[in-house]
């Protein structure tokens, strides 16, 4: 999590609700990079590669249950904060299930004005986890850059076998990225 720009993924199929949520998130912090999805396929295609600092998800979507989204995030993005923002969550068992499965919180859409305060609380709780993730990511980036620069230098050499070695290293670099 960068000091000043937060990465927020929103899973929401209603465009009006999506814009309202975005506005409230900006109330917590003005500089945000969003990524959004309206259905399961788009969500599964985008969320992991986006590497969000936070996921906000509707509970009832046309082609998926919000719990499936939570489980997907827990499986692929471990401790990323995940908050349900939903119109209806009138079943106490569902609330308990959401929390037991690792949701960081939930909020009714009627109470979106409380979102900035909830975000402040959740992001503070998860700060050290996200900072650690950022360090690991930066290390991976440094290694990728060193490896690819070396490959480029190797390709520019006219030494016998250099191109073959460069191609093998390129495969390794591509697999690691």
């Amino acid at each position, binding site marked *: 999590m*960068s000091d000043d*720009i937060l*990465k927020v993924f929103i899973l929401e199929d209603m465009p009006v609700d999506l814009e309202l949520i*975005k506005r409230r998130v900006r109330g917590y912090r003005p*500089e*945000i*990079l*969003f*990524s*959004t999805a309206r259905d399961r396929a788009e969500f599964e295609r985008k969320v992991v*590669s*986006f*590497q969000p600092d936070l996921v906000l998800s509707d509970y009832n979507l046309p082609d998926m249950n919000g719990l499936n989204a939570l489980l997907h995030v827990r499986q692929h993005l471990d401790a990323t904060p995940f908050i349900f923002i939903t119109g209806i969550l009138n079943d106490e068992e569902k609330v308990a299930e959401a929390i037991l499965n690792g949701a960081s919180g939930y909020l009714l859409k009627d109470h979106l004005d409380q979102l900035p305060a909830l975000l402040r609380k959740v992001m503070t709780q998860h700060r050290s986890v996200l900072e650690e993730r*950022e360090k690991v*990511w*930066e290390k*991976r*980036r440094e290694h*990728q*850059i060193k490896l*690819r*620069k070396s490959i*480029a*230098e190797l*390709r520019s050499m006219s030494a016998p076998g250099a191109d073959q070695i460069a191609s093998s290293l390129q495969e390794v*670099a*591509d697999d690691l*990225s």
Partner: protein
Amino acid sequence: MQRSDLITINDDKLGDILSQNGLTIILVTSSWDGYGIIMRSLLERKAVEYGNIRFCVADVETSPKLCRLFNVTAPPGLLLVRNGELIDHRSGAMGGNAIGDFIEQNS
């Protein structure tokens, strides 16, 4: 064929990028990135064709915040941003047709 220079950006320009209302395409590359050099040339031509899209280029080594924000670990990377949202992205080499399709699908 006509070309238009890409706007060079870095970490200091992130706020500008996120506040832009229109479409912005960002190539993340470096001077030693062979594929990126070719893609830059292709994008310079696209910049003339798509006058309503902002075409930018950033260096993978000197823009660590930008790379972290858009999850670019290695060049080349192509990003499409609109109204503070990452609309689409691609990693790795892309030819002219693939770049054209990428722009058309998202503009």
